């Protein structure tokens, strides 16, 4: 089992969900996140005073996956997030030891 984590622009999250649903991946967790990467935030101006905003608003999407779905899911997410401009985000995959479905007590792939 793997955990796919994507930090994405807020407005692409519906596209990500649609793309994953087409692969019959039916669950995801979304949290608000802030951060910066290569673009180093952005500039705002209030009454002539400039502010450097270091942290950009993002959404963090997390999806638990069976190993055989990882490549297709990764491709789908990257495609859904891609605009080609700076700030498109990052996607990474980490191994997961155990998953338990709280309602039934099922473990592993059955719990995804």
């Amino acid at each position, binding site marked *: 089992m793997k955990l796919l984590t994507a930090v994405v622009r807020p407005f692409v999250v519906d596209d990500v969900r649609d793309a994953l649903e087409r692969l019959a991946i039916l669950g995801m967790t979304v949290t608000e996140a802030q951060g910066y990467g290569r673009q180093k935030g952005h500039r*705002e*101006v*209030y*009454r*002539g*005073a*400039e*502010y450097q905003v270091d942290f950009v608003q993002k959404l963090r999407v997390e999806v638990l996956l069976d190993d055989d779905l990882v490549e297709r899911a990764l491709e789908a997410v990257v495609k859904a997030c891609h605009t080609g401009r700076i700030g498109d985000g990052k996607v990474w995959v980490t191994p997961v030891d155990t998953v338990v479905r709280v309602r039934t007590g099922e473990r592993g792939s059955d719990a995804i």
Partner: protein
Amino acid sequence: MIDTGDTAWLLVSAALVMLMTPGLALFYGGMVRSRSVLNVMVLTFVCLAAVGVVWLLFGYSLAFGDSVGGVIGDFGLAGLHGLGERTVGPPGHQVPLLAFVAFQLMFAVITVALLVGAVAERARFWPWLLFVVVWVTVVYVPIAHWIFAFDGYQAPHGGWAANKLHALDFAGGTAVEVNSGAAAVALALVIGNRHGWPRQAPRPHNLPFVMFGAGLLWFGWFGFNAGSALGANGVAATSFVNTTVAAATAVLGWLVVEQLRDGKPTTLGAASGAVAGLVGITPGCGYVEPLGAAAIGVIAGVVCSLAIGLKYRLGLDDSLDVLAVHGIGGFAGMLLVGLFASTGVNSAGANGLFYGGGLDQLWRQAVATLAALGWSLVATLVIAWVIHRTLGLRADRESELDGIDEAEHAESAYDLAVHPSRRGVGAGGEVHR
């Protein structure tokens, strides 16, 4: 004989001006950080309470009672006792005196409320309330007397600027705008800069508040300016049109400056430009033609926008730019009356430089403005300094950094947490979920 039309307009105008104070609370509240919004709003709002009581007890009497040497009124009207039956105004256009009392009260309220912009995010509540009471009495009341109290209107003798100098100030360019701008400088000097300013100048936390507040100010300003005609008449209509025209051109003026200087027209700039234009046209709204008002508006918008940088050059944390928007805008507006005023618009006025009046009116405008500025600056410095030294006008460092709302008021504006992080502890000590 009371004129019901005039009376109705004056009462509505008083109500419109009242609305400017909660409007200002929104305007200011949006410009500060979320941890200070309640403090800024309540300091503004409480002026309605404090000045209302001062006005009743002695404020109105000292501002509009019979003049002592043209400098201040007497105590003859203290307590507003027995005024219910009295009327004021020219024959055929009488209004109840208490309508005038109410209208002028709202001017006093908004003027001191403007000063919150100079002390935002760091002023303690009770010392501020004491400051409001003393400042209105010692600074606002005399200046209002100088400029608004006309011989014979309410009392036999009025103020020197209105009757001897014949400075023209239709709706309070000196008493409200220049006065608050000068006092803001004094207050900011006494209370000191916010921690970290200007290195970490705080960003506005809610620009929609600012826009809504600016909209309410614009709306209320119709009462402020057109109400100053003290009747439902042609001068009121002229003032109304001039008010909105000046705000319109000032918005555009401010935004063009921003586009050229910063590369983007901003929301805060549009809101600030509107206020700058309203400030700029205030003294002249009943004396100039609509095209003159348009010129005054665009000048106010451009000048105030450029003046915003002044506080950084002076190193003075006039947090919400009371000096740049109200002080400089009011100063410019007062002087521009000396250029654009026309007796063709208002026979009670004078001709400015552009209407064949020469420099005569201009120097009268300058003298009234500088007198208000000087008295406001000096007296505010003394009042603020004494209160600061005795009671402490400023919150301590921790309160300011952790959030003055919580430290001063035991409240916070927003509870956005999903988790039940706040437990209600009832008065009896039992825990409520």
